């Protein structure tokens, strides 16, 4: 079996030359990975609402149909929002990609094994919902996933990126939810009240 990818390098590779890509980050390690790759006004970091990341991505994608939107989240966070994959599949946005950084564990709470750690396959679940999905385990496959972030398709896409279960150095984003909201909207030319 090929060695698992390094999560920080994988996310940095996915976000290289990001241009106008809008990024929603699931709480915990995925937020730190995205922040470590470079804070950006087009990043919306979640510090709660576990299970919401892909769905927040759907809302943005539907409100901004000409922009590409990626939700970068973890296996634990996506597992809490599994039903959301059905909702996203039916909504069929052309400009939304979901990236699941899958280390098979709940990283914030003591590295307990998650359902994917027990063998469950989120890519297959997404495929069963009708979402184009694949497992990413190599750097060349990662490059293909990166390309998907920069072009619309017939429908939503989901990539599961298998990574090592280890704690990278913390890279903590801003926690002020109102600031994150205003910053993200200002980046889109939207003003507060």
């Amino acid at each position, binding site marked *: 079996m090929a060695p698992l990818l390094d999560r920080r390098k994988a996310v940095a590779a996915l976000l290289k030359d990001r241009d106008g890509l809008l990024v*929603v980050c699931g709480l915990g390690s995925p937020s730190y990975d995205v922040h470590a790759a470079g804070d950006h006004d087009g990043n*919306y970091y*979640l510090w*709660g*609402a*576990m*299970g*919401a990341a892909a*769905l*927040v*991505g*759907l*809302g*943005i*994608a*539907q*409100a*901004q149909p000409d*922009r590409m939107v990626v939700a970068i989240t973890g296996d634990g966070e996506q597992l809490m*929002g599994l*039903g*959301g994959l*059905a*909702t996203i599949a*039916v*909504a069929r946005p052309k400009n939304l990609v979901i990236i699941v950084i899958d280390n098979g564990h709940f990283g914030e709470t003591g590295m307990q094994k998650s359902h994917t750690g027990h063998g469950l396959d989120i890519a297959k679940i997404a495929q069963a919902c009708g979402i184009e999905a694949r497992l990413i385990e190599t750097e060349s496959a990662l490059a293909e996933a990166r390309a998907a972030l920069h072009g619309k398709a017939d429908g939503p896409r989901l990539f599961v990126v298998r990574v090592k279960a280890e704690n990278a150095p913390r890279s903590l984003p801003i926690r002020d*939810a*109102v600031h*994150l*909201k205003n910053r*993200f*909207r200002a980046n*889109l030319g*939207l003003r507060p*009240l």
Partner: protein
Amino acid sequence: MIRTDPSAQGAETPSGGGGAAPNTGQKPGQSVSWPAAVYRILKGYDVRHMAFVPDAGHSELIELFRADPDIVSNVLTTEEEGIAIAAGAHLGGARSVLLMQSSGVGNCINMLSLPVISRFPLLMLVTMRGEWAEFNPWQVPMGLATEPALKAIGLRCLRAETADELIDSVAAAAALAYDADQQIAVLISQRMIAKKIW
């Protein structure tokens, strides 16, 4: 199968939007089609997203939104998904409304931290069960818990017992949500909803 009130082909209601309480033009003894009035109020506020888990009491309003090509309608597997989608819609510059039954409110509580802590505008229209001529005992606990649970997480609740009250409440709630970044639930009394035939 739902028996709907045959007299609910209502009086003409003026289009909504803005803060003044709409004159429903209702004549004594004539019912108002509140879904049509609510739809017009929300269109007046440029609501462009709707999300729902289907509920019989909301079926007419759901269809009005779904038939509108300028509205994005999302069917949900569980109600809390709509809270997350509405947050994303606001981040992207679009206004949303969520339609659900009282039982679904119970599914939303943790997700509601998102709009509350972020001060996202949020408008939920909730049809109540378990509180008026209810056949199904399993609806009773959430019927009792809906208002306290929403208030506990930080939402303001407006209640409507009649069609006129509902139309006024939705207009006021829309102003609070979209003009003042508040998180509001309008609770639609079960007394207003046609009795479900089993």
